[in-house]
């Protein structure tokens, strides 16, 4: 992170944009599915508004302009002036995509926004808002079109000055309060705002004075303060709020602009905004109010500063420098704090503190969290968590080593040391679980990106698609979450491009024109399962077979079950698209998807029902840091087999073992012959074959569903092991997935079951080839 506080805040702003945009999308989708609850609409509004607010502070004009139009329409919706209908929601969804693009572009993480697309959407949004596009000048992305209805004047940050004591004069005209102002509207001349702050408003570092000043930018303001609620000194609770402010704004600005001023405090106060009609002008008796200069703002309105609650008193003493500082801190707070669940809420931010370190609590965060008391959370650098996880991994190993040493020293099981060690083991395990839980994240962050993808792919292919997601809250390790996006993206594309039919085809087949793609996540036996199903045409097995034969992947004589045919699409060099489409035929096939999933220790399969659709399902470990393994012995080595791959273990009966062609052993397992792989020999630990009859066999299943028997000397037991990469300091070794450190402090290799089984097969086949040749 940069040392420049401004840059640091910007980074935070973009992080929060990401979350806000995610929320926006979620809520828009809720709207789309018919949830027109006012809270949902408000949430959308707030998200856009917060993005706009932050963007304004950084002078990101394009982003602000777009967000503003977006926000205006949202405001129409939330005020109920405009009904929430399908067209609007769909436009909003597309607008949220463009908003996303704007944010990426501003961040420098994405290409420049397609100005035409952006302008077109602005026009669409405006048409929905006003019945006709307001902004002229299409094509001119930075044109001043619509500037006039820009009720938004961002306070630009000047953080360089935050650290020092001396602050430059505020670049605001204090005269704005008394500047003559010509009402533009004959009917409505202004707004009357009754504002009763709650104590929490002050706790969240907001100031009535600042709000009044903000309001003063919209036009001349008259402020009346009602201190009748202030109790006598002996009854005074200094942290309470007793004052009621009545502000009269003599300007016929749009209501949204007025609400904007109070947006961040909305839930921390009683707010009553009523329009003043021209006939009611007498409520503005003293337009030329002489003394409301900014510095005296608080003081002149306060009857007696001594009687003020403590929180208010600070407002009474502010000088201009402090006001600037507060305003900056407040803006910084807004930038920092829009995302509710990830902030440490500290009660009183210090304006002088470095903004990022201070993590100033935002009013809006509190207001968003107010409805559903969000749990208090903190943001932590991932690296720190990783360090902790590594250290705990070492702790687990050390604990196991210690236990083994004590055991070897011959101490009785009931000795104090042994009992203490058992407690230590429990504790260690608990720490490990808790630490792993820190990294666990809901798959939501990945799922949220998918509706956009689906919309785009649907547009490109001319298909109509509805995406249903389920199980977004399913948690997996962060590293897994991050690496889910690519395979899911690919499979979704595939499902829409290849799985779903065109609306005409669908109707002809008696299905609804709109296809459905379902994306679901669930936990199943210690793994996460992601299912992507469509109600399309299913896999055309004849075609798959024909292609596989044509590419030489199978021979025409080979008899395959339906399932086996379906799974041919995962073979390298297989792509069913007749021509390479823009959507899914980008040179990567399902084999790449399968490989990337396998590299995560996962497996993928497909089941298809002709005419009804297909379901891809992939299962992945919940974490890449630990693995449930079976510790086995082969030759004099200790190895770990991933438990997930093991179907069963058994002691083979001599009569169940047969030699195919007199050489290759196979094992009769449940009426099925499975190849028997001698692990010690396959790994090169032993030259002579393992005594078949003395060993133990683990029946394993590969990702592709092939079964094989792994012959080992002994099974030592089941254990959770910490995965250590071999690649860090060495390189990939065939047949080895990774390494781990066992209780005796030695390194044990984790078997790569798939590689073992395929090499075993390959070896068998080369050998039989040789025999045939001789």
């Amino acid at each position, binding site marked *: 992170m940069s040392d420049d506080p401004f840059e640091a805040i910007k980074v935070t702003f973009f992080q929060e944009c990401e979350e806000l945009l995610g929320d926006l999308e979620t809520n828009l989708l809720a709207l789309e599915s018919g949830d027109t609850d006012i809270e949902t609409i408000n949430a959308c509004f707030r998200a856009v508004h917060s993005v706009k607010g932050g963007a304004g502070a950084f002078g990101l004009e394009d982003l602000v302009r777009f967000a503003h139009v977006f926000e205006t329409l949202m405001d129409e919706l939330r005020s109920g002036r405009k009904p929430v209908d399908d067209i609007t929601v769909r436009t909003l969804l597309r607008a949220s995509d463009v908003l996303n693009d704007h944010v990426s572009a501003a961040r420098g993480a994405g290409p420049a926004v397609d100005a035409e697309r952006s302008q077109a959407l602005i026009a669409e949004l405006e048409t929905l808002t006003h019945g006709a596009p307001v902004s002229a000048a299409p094509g001119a992305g930075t044109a001043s079109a619509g500037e006039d209805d820009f009720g938004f004047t961002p306070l630009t940050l000047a953080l360089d000055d935050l650290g020092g004591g001396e602050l430059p004069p505020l670049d605001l005209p204090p005269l704005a309060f008394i500047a003559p102002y010509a009402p533009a509207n004959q009917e409505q001349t202004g707004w009357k705002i009754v504002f009763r702050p709650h104590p929490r408003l002050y706790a969240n570092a907001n100031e009535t004075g600042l709000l009044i000043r903000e309001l003063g930018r919209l036009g001349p303001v008259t402020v009346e303060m009602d201190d009748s609620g202030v109790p006598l000194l002996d009854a005074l609770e200094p942290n309470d709020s007793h004052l009621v402010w009545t502000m009269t704004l003599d300007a016929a600005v749009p209501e949204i602009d007025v609400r904007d001023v109070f947006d961040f405090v909305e839930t921390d106060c009683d707010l009553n905004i009523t329009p003043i009609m021209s006939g009611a002008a007498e409520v503005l008796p003293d337009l030329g109010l002489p003394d409301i200069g900014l510095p005296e703002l608080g003081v002149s309105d306060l009857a007696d500063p001594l009687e003020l609650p403590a929180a208010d008193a600070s407002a009474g003493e502010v000088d201009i420098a402090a006001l600037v500082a507060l305003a900056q801190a407040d803006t910084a707070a807004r930038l920092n704090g829009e995302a509710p669940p990830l902030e440490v809420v500290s009660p009183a931010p210090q304006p002088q503190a470095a903004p990022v370190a201070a993590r100033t609590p935002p009013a809006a965060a509190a207001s968003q969290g107010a409805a559903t008391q969000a749990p208090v959370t903190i943001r932590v650098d991932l690296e720190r968590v990783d360090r902790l996880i590594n250290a705990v991994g*070492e702790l687990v190993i050390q604990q196991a080593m210690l236990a083994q040493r004590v055991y070897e020293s011959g101490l009785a099981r009931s000795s104090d040391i042994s009992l203490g060690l058992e407690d230590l083991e429990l504790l260690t395990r608990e720490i490990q679980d808790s630490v792993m839980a820190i990294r666990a994240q809901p798959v939501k962050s990945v799922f949220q990106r998918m509706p956009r993808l689906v919309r785009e792919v649907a547009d490109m292919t001319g298909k109509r698609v509805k995406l249903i997601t389920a199980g977004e809250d399913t948690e997996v390790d962060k590293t897994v979450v991050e690496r889910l996006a690519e395979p899911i993206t690919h499979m979704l594309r595939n499902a829409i491009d290849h799985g779903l039919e065109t609306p005409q085809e669908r109707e002809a087949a008696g299905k609804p024109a709109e296809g459905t793609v379902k994306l679901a996540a669930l936990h199943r036996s210690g793994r996460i399962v992601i299912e992507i199903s469509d109600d399309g045409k299913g896999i055309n097995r004849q075609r798959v077979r024909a292609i596989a034969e044509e590419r030489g992947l199978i021979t025409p004589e080979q008899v395959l079950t339906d399932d086996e045919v379906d799974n041919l699409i995962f073979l390298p060099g297989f792509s069913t698209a007749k021509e390479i489409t823009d959507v899914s035929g980008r040179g990567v096939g399902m084999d790449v998807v399968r490989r990337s999933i396998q590299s995560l220790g996962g497996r993928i399969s497909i089941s298809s029902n002709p005419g009804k659709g297909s379901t891809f399902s992939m299962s992945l470990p919940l974490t890449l840091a630990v693995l449930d393994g079976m510790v086995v012995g082969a030759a004099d080595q200790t190895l770990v087999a991933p438990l997930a791959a093991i179907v069963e273990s058994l002691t083979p009966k001599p009569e169940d073992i047969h030699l195919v062609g007199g050489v290759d052993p196979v094992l009769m397992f449940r009426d099925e012959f499975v190849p028997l792989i001698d692990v010690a020999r*396959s790994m*090169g630990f032993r030259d002579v074959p393992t005594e078949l009859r003395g060993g133990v066999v683990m029946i394993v299943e590969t990702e592709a569903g092939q079964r094989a028997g792994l012959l080992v000397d002994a099974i030592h037991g089941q254990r959770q092991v910490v995965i250590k*990469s*071999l690649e860090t*300091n060495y390189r990939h*070794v065939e047949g080895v997935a990774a390494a781990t450190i066992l209780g005796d*402090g030695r*390194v044990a290799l984790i078997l790569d079951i798939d590689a073992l089984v395929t090499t075993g097969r390959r070896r068998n086949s080369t050998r039989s080839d040789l025999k045939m040749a001789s």
Partner: protein
Amino acid sequence: MTQVTPNVAGTDRELIAFRIGEQEFCVDIMSVREIRGWTPATPLPRSPAYMKGVINLRGTVLPIIDLGARFGLQTGEPTERHVIMVAHVGSRLVGLLVDAVSDIVQLTDASIQPTPDVASESVKAFVKGIFAVEGGRMISLIDLEHVLPAEAEAEAA
């Protein structure tokens, strides 16, 4: 401790010298992180003979290279008297199995002579140059960049 006779005034490098059989080699001391005794390694399948396997270095999986075997010299099974020099090779950390660490020497680059043609090809591939120290000893300066097996080599082995 023997002193190198520098050809040019001033010292440029500090090197750590070690023995393999009768020969002496050295590497830049900055690339060596620690020196520890031999502990049995876990063998890796399908690896070249000079890959002794991996050991646990306080939680790090450390590959062990038998330097002598890597140079094509005759080596026996490692004993407790052998040592492992833990060294940085590029971004990796590897353990180099040698007979013993013998010396720390200082010399300038100018005193290094090119490897004479008499050396065997396998040694020459890893030796950047040789130099003489007092007592008529000759030390070869090792280039660690190539001690790890190349991709193709490891696959073939």
